[in-house]
C-alpha cells in the first residue's frame, strides 16, 4: 500500500494572514493518469492554500482513506462501480468531491447516492473547483463566526409590543455609548416606521436597490442610505405599502452580507411578520431579540415563535427574550413568563411611555432627552448584549403561578406555589 505523499504546499497570502490561514489538504483517488490534469490544476491554485497529496490508485485504497485529508477527490470514470464503492463510507470525515467524466443525470444521481458532497466534471473548470475548495476551506475556518459587524434582529410574533422602539434605542445606544458605526435596516416593510422614530425623511429606500440588475456594492448601498444626526445610517422601508412586494429575498441577503463588511453593528427591525425573508435575516444574525408584553396572547405568540425556532433547528440562535412595557405587580409577571416559555427573560423594559413620548415629540433621541432614565439604562444593557459585550441575565422574580393551563404546562417540579 502506497502512503500518500505531499506533492506541494502552497500558501495563498503573505505575512500574518498567511501564518493564520490553515492549508486544506486534498487527497486524490483514482487512476493517476486520469488525475494528471487535476493535480497540475490544483497546484496552480493559491487561494485557498492547498496541500495536494499524490493520487492513491485502485485497488490500493486504505480503509481509513477518509481520515487522511480534509477533501478527497474521487475520479469516477469507467471503473465507476469501484469508485462509488470507495465513496460509500458514511462516516467519512473528509468532504468528498466526485470528479465525473460525464454530465449525465444518472451518473450524478449515483454519485450523490453514494455519498458525494460536491460534484466536479471533466473537462475541468478552474473557477468551479476554486469555488468549491473555498467553500470547504471557509467551512473549516468557521465562516459562520462573526467576521465583520454584528447583526442584531428585533422581532415579535404579536403587534404593538414596541419592536421598532427597541430596535431604534438599542441601535442608538450602541452608537452613543459604545461609539460604533451603526446601520438601521427597516424590514418592517409595510409599516416603515423606523425613519419616523429617528425623525428623518429618507429620499430613497431599499426598493431602489432592486431597480437595477447590477450586483450590490458599497457605492450602490451608500447611495440609498440616510444619515441620522447621531452618525448612524438608515436603510429605509419602501415609501408606499405596495412597494414592499418589490423587495426580493436576494436583495435582503445581499444587503446584510455587505452591511456587515461596512458597519460594526447592523440593527434589523423585522416587525411582527415572519416569513422566509425573516428567517434569512435570522440566519445572518448574531443576536435575535424577541419582544413581548405581559398579556396571555403575547405569551402564546412567543411560545409559537420559540416552537418555530426549535423546528427550524438554528442551533446557534437563542433569542434574548425582552418584556416590553413592563409593569411591576401586574398578574402576568416575569416569573410567569419564564415558566410559560421555559426560558430565561433577558430584560424588562419599564413602562415609561412618558419619557418615550417626550423623545418622540421633541424630535431628539433618548440620550439627549433623558440619558439617565431607567428605560435608557435598560436599552444600554441590551445594547451591550447585542454588541457582544455582556451576557448577564436578569434574575427572575419570585415564582408564582396563579394563571391557568397556559402557564401550568411547563411548571418546574420544584417551583414554590
Amino acid at each position: 500500500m502506497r502512503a500518500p505523499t505531499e506533492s506541494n504546499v502552497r500558501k495563498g497570502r503573505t505575512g500574518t494572514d498567511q501564518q493564520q490561514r490553515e492549508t486544506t489538504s486534498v487527497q486524490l483517488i483514482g487512476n493517476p493518469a486520469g488525475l494528471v490534469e487535476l493535480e497540475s490544476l490544483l497546484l496552480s491554485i493559491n487561494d485557498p492554500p492547498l496541500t495536494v497529496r499524490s493520487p492513491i490508485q485502485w485497488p490500493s485504497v486504505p480503509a481509513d482513506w477518509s481520515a487522511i485529508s480534509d477533501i478527497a477527490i474521487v475520479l469516477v470514470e469507467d471503473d465507476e462501480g469501484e469508485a462509488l464503492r470507495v465513496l460509500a463510507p458514511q462516516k467519512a470525515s473528509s468532504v468528498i468531491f466526485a470528479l465525473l467524466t460525464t454530465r449525465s443525470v444518472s451518473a450524478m444521481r449515483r454519485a450523490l447516492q453514494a455519498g458525494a458532497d460536491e460534484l466536479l466534471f471533466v473537462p475541468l473548470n478552474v473557477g468551479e473547483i476554486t469555488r468549491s475548495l473555498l467553500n470547504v476551506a471557509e467551512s473549516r475556518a468557521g465562516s459562520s463566526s462573526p467576521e465583520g459587524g454584528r447583526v442584531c434582529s428585533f422581532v415579535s410574533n404579536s403587534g404593538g409590543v414596541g419592536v421598532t422602539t427597541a430596535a431604534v434605542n438599542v441601535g442608538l445606544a450602541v452608537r452613543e455609548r459604545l461609539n460604533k458605526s451603526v446601520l438601521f435596516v427597516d424590514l418592517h416593510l409595510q409599516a416603515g416606521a423606523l425613519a419616523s422614530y429617528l425623525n428623518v425623511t429618507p429620499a430613497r429606500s431599499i426598493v431602489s436597490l432592486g431597480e437595477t440588475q447590477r450586483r450590490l456594492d458599497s457605492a450602490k448601498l451608500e447611495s440609498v442610505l440616510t444619515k441620522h444626526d447621531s452618525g448612524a445610517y438608515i436603510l429605509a422601508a419602501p415609501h408606499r405599502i405596495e412597494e414592499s412586494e418589490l423587495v426580493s429575498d436576494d436583495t435582503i441577503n445581499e444587503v446584510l452580507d455587505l452591511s456587515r463588511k461596512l458597519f460594526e453593528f447592523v440593527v434589523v427591525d423585522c416587525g411582527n411578520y415572519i416569513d422566509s425573508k425573516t428567517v434569512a435575516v435570522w440566519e445572518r444574525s448574531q443576536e435575535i431579540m424577541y419582544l413581548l408584553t405581559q398579556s396571555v396572547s403575547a405569551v402564546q405568540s412567543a411560545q409559537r415563535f420559540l416552537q418555530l425556532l426549535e423546528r427550524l433547528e438554528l442551533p446557534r440562535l437563542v433569542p434574548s427574550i425582552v418584556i416590553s412595557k413592563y409593569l411591576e405587580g401586574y398578574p402576568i409577571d416575569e416569573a410567569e413568563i419564564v415558566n410559560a416559555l421555559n426560558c430565561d427573560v433577558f430584560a424588562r423594559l419599564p413602562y415609561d411611555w412618558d419619557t418615550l413620548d417626550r423623545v418622540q415629540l421633541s424630535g431628539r433621541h433618548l440620550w439627549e432627552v433623558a440619558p439617565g432614565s431607567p428605560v435608557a439604562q435598560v436599552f444600554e444593557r441590551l445594547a451591550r448584549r447585542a454588541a457582544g459585550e455582556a451576557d448577564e441575565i436578569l434574575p427572575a422574580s419570585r415564582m408564582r403561578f396563579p394563571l391557568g393551563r397556559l402557564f401550568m404546562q411547563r411548571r418546574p417540579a420544584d417551583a414554590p406555589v
Partner: protein
Amino acid sequence: METPVKVLIVDDQPVIRGSLRLRLTPLGCAVEEAENATQGLALFERLRPKLVTLDVIMPTIGGYTSLDLMHDIRRIDPETNVVVISSKLDDREAFLNAGAIEFVAKPFDNFRSLARKLEPLIQSLSLAQ
C-alpha cells in the same frame, strides 16, 4: 434556452418551504409546494416534477407517510430525484434504500449547501428537458 426544472417541495412548515424555494428558484427551478404527503402525491401525479424535496416529519393523513410517498414516487417514475430532509438520522437508511439521492439532516443552515450540491444536477435536468 434552458427550461425551468419542476420541483415539488413537500413540507408541513411554510417557512421551510419558503426557504427552500428561496434557494432553488435562482437555480432555474419552477417550485410547487405541498404541505403533506397526500397532497404531495396528488401534485406529483399532476406535475411530474424532476426533483422532489421531502420532509420526513410530517403529519400523516389516513396513515399515509412520507416513506409511502417516497415509494409511490419511485413506482410512478423511478427517474425522479428525491431529496429527503429530516432531523432524525435514523431515517437515513430507509430512505436511501428506497432510492433517495440525498439525505439532508437539518439544521436549517444545511439548505444552502444542499442548493450548491444540487446545482449541476438541476442544470443537467434543465438541459435534458
